[in-house]
């Protein structure tokens, strides 16, 4: 075999069209390819990824076994018994090269959060690290309407874009092996709502009583990529009251 360009990030470069950002297609071994728009968190790129995911799904390509759209990339899984990677890449370049992105309506959710204390064990460290008071940190975190850039990592885990620059915080050097469900956390330039207990390398800011994933609910995954979230600070009593309420769901409205 030859390693030639394969050590490093191999890429077929595709020139951008009117709506299409520059993307590269790189192998994920013989399991998939990554259509990658690079190290970026911006709404336009994410809208294109959303459109690309919909286009690949609609095309019903034989041999494609799944897709994972993220902030800035679309992984397309395939089985080489039905289609080679070279064929898949050629098909995707044609399909995605001149893709049109259209506006679509989405839901805005209002999600209550208890910040700090036992609900957010890294809250005080984050205040110190960024030289902010508790009130300032909460104000900075609750101000934006966050776009749900992707659902990933664990069922229903929502990754949000739009975190204030002043709250960007490098992830922990060693991930925690356990964090509670409903954690609201910061990792790098991202903030997120977790859905189930899971390991995490992110800093824990607070917790919501909302379960974004519940296998016994229809639909089990409440929030989708392209929706938006506003956080509202509540106290521990408010948290326990909502947690005790059966079938409680947060308020939301349609937006375009």
């Amino acid at each position, binding site marked *: 075999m030859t390693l030639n360009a394969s*050590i490093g990030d191999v890429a077929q470069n595709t020139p951008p069209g009117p709506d299409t950002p520059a993307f590269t297609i790189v192998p994920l*071994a013989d399991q998939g390819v990554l259509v990658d728009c690079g190290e970026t968190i911006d709404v336009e790129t994410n809208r294109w990824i959303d459109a690309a995911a919909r286009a690949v799904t609609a095309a019903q390509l034989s041999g494609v076994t799944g897709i994972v759209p993220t902030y800035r990339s679309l992984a397309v899984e395939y089985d*080489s018994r039905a289609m080679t990677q070279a064929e898949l890449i050629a098909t995707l370049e044609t399909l995605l090269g001149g893709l049109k992105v259209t506006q679509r309506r989405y839901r805005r959710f209002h999600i209550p959060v208890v910040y700090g204390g036992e609900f957010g064990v890294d809250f005080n460290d984050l205040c110190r690290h960024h030289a902010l008071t508790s009130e300032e940190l909460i104000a900075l975190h609750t101000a934006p309407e966050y776009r749900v850039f992707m659902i990933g990592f664990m069922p229903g885990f929502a990754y949000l874009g739009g975190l204030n620059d002043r709250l960007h915080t490098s992830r922990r050097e060693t991930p925690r092996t356990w964090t509670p469900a409903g954690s609201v956390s910061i990792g790098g330039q991202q903030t997120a709502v977790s859905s189930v207990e899971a390991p995490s390398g992110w800093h824990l800011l607070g917790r919501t009583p909302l379960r974004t994933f519940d296998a016994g609910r229809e639909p089990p995954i409440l929030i989708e990529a392209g929706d938006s979230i506003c956080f509202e600070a509540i106290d521990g009593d408010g948290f326990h009251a909502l947690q005790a309420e059966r079938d409680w769901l947060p308020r939301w409205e349609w937006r375009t």
Partner: protein
Amino acid sequence: MSETAMTAGASLQVDAPGMMTTLQDGGRQGQGHLGVPPSGALDTMSLALANALVGNAPDTGALEITLLGPTLVMKGGDCAVAVAGDAEVLHNDCRVAPFCSLWLREGDVLTVRRVASGARAYLAVAGGFVAAPFLGSVATLARAGIGGFAGRPLAAGDQLGLATPGGGEASVGRRGEQHLPQREKRAIRVVPGPQAGHFSRAKQARFFSAEWTISTLADRMGYRLTGPALASAGGHNIVSDALLTGSVQVPGDGQPIIAMNDRGTTGGYPKIATVIRADLARLGQMKPGDRLRFEAVDVAHAETLWRGRQEAFQAYLDRLTG
């Protein structure tokens, strides 16, 4: 058919659950966009073989046994069962061979004492277990409480319902080859990327030259490796993108983590390489303390290995069940 063939409610009663025994099948494929990982058997070849021995389709849900196995008692009926893996199996205190379909009568006790080599063995029952599929699969994802029996590993006292009591009589005595992926002693093959460029040439070379040890932090979600630190030149934060089973992430401490079936669907550490499909079952048989090396192959070679292996394995299963 046996007299008890029509008995409703036949089950395997769990007297001891073993170290970590879960119901697994071919996995929950194609749900990554919902953040739902595939789960499913870590060694899909052994799963398929256990199923073939009792006449099931290859991806039927079966018990995945980790190192120390369960003790099960047949209740309310009879059924054919088979274990695939390098396992010590006792049928009513008599040692029996794995890779062989045997008949459990009401009251019979089946114990899988330990897995002698590799990490896992698979126990299939003819017709499969009663379990409600979630998103098309009965695979257990304990972390999210979905699939399997109540979304968790087996516990003492569980009654595992049989979907087809009295099933599989025709398969009894069927014997398979001692098919053990862990016997193949060679490097785990990977395709570099998608973020190999975040690592210096020297770090990439060390990734391939080093011998890595699977740490005690190795479970169905991922295997943490210990060896020389591979700190990434571009830092250890990237904008999160997709993880696949076999993605090799490198967090800030420079110690790689291989994503396994219960992994997250996305991750924010750079991925130096991705394990090829043909080596995933073998990787799934590795356990803490095992050592491994990585070897780079190109995509076309990986595809050839996968297609060749699957065709040969399918042909073997067809001969076995034919």
